């Protein structure tokens, strides 16, 4: 038996394998968009052939963080805003793992914004799903980084004076090599986009519009949605950075005018992932580092043999 025999296992996978049989059952509110992320992931993972035990799902804090409880894989429910640094290190330690990170808009675009920028910049080979509901849900409805200007809440009683953050544009400029937006109300597209994102070799950012029926919108407010890759009203080349940027800007502004544009906005298949870049310059081993600790034949280097002579 190898050390990590769950990795690379070729077999049929049933989507029920990702579902805890007894508890915990999801505690999200009825009508919550988060159910759609869970469902889309359960559909996408078997299709890309990744089993629960070769998948590491890292989440932050908030309603989105509960995803870890309801998707039965290896999981790391980290702390608010910090799913990305934990996830990307796990990927560097063992590149054979399928690493997925997830969090809310406050988690990823607010408190974890710095990590988001730098993980995108470095183009780590992983998928990042942001549950974007334009609100802080679990803490009971405060204004978030993507709440519209003028949004009133207990923490912004006179209406927010801030322009909402533009996550797609930010992601593109930071360096993500796959940027998409999907919506909970569009399960088929959501599944397809997650499959593409997981299979993409690089940082794949999926801004997932998840309605929060308790604090701001119900599902109807995300309908109708338009897939910009299929609509005749929009024409752009998703592999062209300039055209992608313009389409993103249009999309981000349209959302606050009640028009829901979704789809793949930017795809760069040529850019090497961070792991490949690091291997290229000799700063990352070819074999997964995590394997080495189980190799009985490996001769561990000693500072006494390697380094101390120069101190004589």
């Amino acid at each position, binding site marked *: 038996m190898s050390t990590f025999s769950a990795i690379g296992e070729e077999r049929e996978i049933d989507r029920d394998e990702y579902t*805890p049989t007894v508890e*915990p059952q999801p505690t999200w509110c009825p009508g919550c968009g988060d159910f759609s992320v869970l469902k889309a992931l359960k559909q996408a993972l078997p299709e890309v052939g990744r089993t629960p*035990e070769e998948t*590491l799902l890292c989440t932050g804090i908030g309603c989105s963080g509960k995803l870890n409880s309801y998707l039965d894989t290896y*999981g790391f429910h980290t702390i608010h805003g910090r799913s990305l640094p934990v996830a990307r290190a796990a990927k560097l330690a063992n590149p054979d793992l399928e690493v997925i990170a997830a969090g809310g808009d406050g988690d990823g675009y607010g408190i974890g914004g710095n990590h988001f920028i730098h993980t995108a910049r470095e183009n780590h080979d992983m998928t990042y799903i942001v549950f974007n509901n334009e609100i802080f849900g679990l803490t009971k409805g405060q204004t978030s980084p993507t709440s519209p200007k003028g949004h009133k809440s207990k923490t912004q009683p006179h209406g927010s004076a801030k322009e909402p953050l533009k996550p797609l544009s930010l992601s593109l400029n930071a360096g993500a090599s796959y940027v998409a937006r999907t919506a909970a109300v569009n399960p088929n597209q959501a599944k397809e986009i997650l499959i593409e994102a997981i299979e993409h070799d690089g940082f794949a950012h999926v801004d997932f519009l998840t309605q929060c029926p308790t604090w701001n919108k119900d599902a109807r407010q995300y309908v109708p949605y338009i897939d910009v890759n299929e609509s005749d009203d929009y024409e752009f080349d998703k592999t062209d950075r300039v055209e992608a940027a313009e389409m993103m800007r249009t999309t981000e502004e349209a959302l606050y005018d009640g028009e829901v544009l979704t789809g793949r906005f930017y795809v760069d298949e040529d850019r090497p992932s961070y792991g490949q870049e*690091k291997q290229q310059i000799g700063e990352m081993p070819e*074999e997964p580092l*995590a394997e*080495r600790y189980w190799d009985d034949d490996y001769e561990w280097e000693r500072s006494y043999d390697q380094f101390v002579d120069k101190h004589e």
Partner: protein
Amino acid sequence: MTDEELIWRISGGSGDGIASTSQNFAKALMRSGLNVFTHRHYPSRIRGGHTYTEIRAAADPVESRGDGYNFLLALGDSFARNPQEGAVYGNEEIKPLSENLDELREGGVIVYDEGLLDPSEIPNFEERVEENGWHVFPLDLRGLARDMGREVMRNTAGVGATCALIGMDLEHVEDLMRDAMPEKILDPNLEILETAYDQVREEYDVDAVEVSVPTGEHEETQLLMSGSDAISYGAIDEGCRFIAGYPMTPWTEVFTIMTQNLPELGGISEQVEDEIAAAALAVGASHAGVKAMSGSSGGGFALMSEPLGLAEMTETPLVLVEAMRAGPSTGMPTKPEQSDLEHVLYTSQGDSQRVVLAPGTVAEAYEQSRLAFRLAYEYQIPTILLYDQKLGGELVNVPKSHFDREPNPTLGKTLSEEELAEQPHSADGKFHRFQHDVEDGVTPRSIPGQKGGRYLATGNEHDPTGHISESPDNRVAQIDRRTQKLEAIRADLDTEDTSSYAGPDDAEYGILTFGSQQGTVEEAVGRLNDAGVSVKSLGVSDMLPFPTEEVRTFIESVEEVLVVEMTASGQFRGLVQKNLGQYGEKLSSLLKYNGNPFEPAEVVDGFEAAIIEGDGDASGHQTTFVPAAGD
């Protein structure tokens, strides 16, 4: 203070090559058979600002900086921005000659670069030279270097002059230059060295100089090592192959050494966006089955509070190093202090469940770096190695054999897939990673990718499978189990001999200290006993879990105890009293927080003034005495 030692101070500006020149000269002295110890003083600037390094060299062991110095090589600050007396920072150009001149011992030697420095700018220079019997050698080091090579080689000329004056053969210096320098600059440097050496011997009566190089002999091969080197090598020998960090003085040294060495070991180093990420990456790598570390200095470590707490709650093995400097806030970036002790013990929400070790010497830094990894992985707990700018940067000779030890890459209680199959699982196949009743509180872990090992790690309180739980019974069981690990670690540490004792067992008085002040305190204890004062010392390394009984025994065995530390509020004394719950009337403090580490004489004088003569500050020193309760 003895005449059998050389304390050579080389001073100049940042960027003048003080560090590399002093490192080579220290190594040459070591190779000649002497024990050496260096003390660095430098400003937070890239170019300019008064910088010096002292090398103390003697045939006997040296574990501390000395009192003052007996040889000054003043190069002058060639990058000085403020050549006027009235400038905010004063006349910087002259500082390498004028600063701390009072600390030059009687009969000491001054070599200064007359190409750059004019002593007439120093008040009463001639009178002071005469009063103190100093031997002064104005040499045009810059001119000599310029004529034969380049101006920056004036350091070499200074070393040549030094060797001529103290009667040291050039052999070891030249060997080291041959090892370190490419041919193009080697030849002019050798020429400059020899010319300066010959010129001084021809032009001056060197026999009249009262300072000479001691002679000594080593029984085995020695290495010139800093605390930062030792910590890094300890990590490597424990199989640490992942580091993540963000630059910050003085922790950057460990980060740099690891980063330069890891690629050839097939390891990974990551320079990341901030210290929150740095520690979180180390957590992620460790979770995925790699031995990992991160670290910082005070301000950066503050950002690590979150991931540190996450490692505690998820029981992820992790080593963090914290290189203290003077605080609060940005404080004094390049100056040592020990005032982050409480910060590392208590930062992050909830009850602390971590290990904190504070090595006292370079040799201990290697051993305790290894110990930190062993404890972190065996007990699945974050372990912090607490040191400071002093220990990180000081260079001392350590026998080479000290490092001749077997590597230990083991991951601790981590299960193979075969072993996992035997472990308890839930009906749906989830592995019980956090079982309630286990030996020493350590519950075995799996690694992502293993079949039969899936579980949830979470910063929330959790049940045995890792799922979030707020059940009171589970909460108590989990906290008690995690706390039990600290008891097991305390018992483990009792077999490790991390404390250091000096002085006679039956001494009347005691000195307690921790971390990097240990060597200085031990030298002071030696001097006090030579002067007829019956005193012993205990240098403590285990900050958490604290060696309560060992310290109690020490305090019980003496009349009074002086606690020596580089803090302003007596943090270590507070820690002792918190753990022992008594002795407030028996413990007094000697504190120093001016940015410089204790000199042995400050401890000697401080002890005599406070304990022997009674409750006072020693005059002439920037140290502070705080009496025991009730005094």
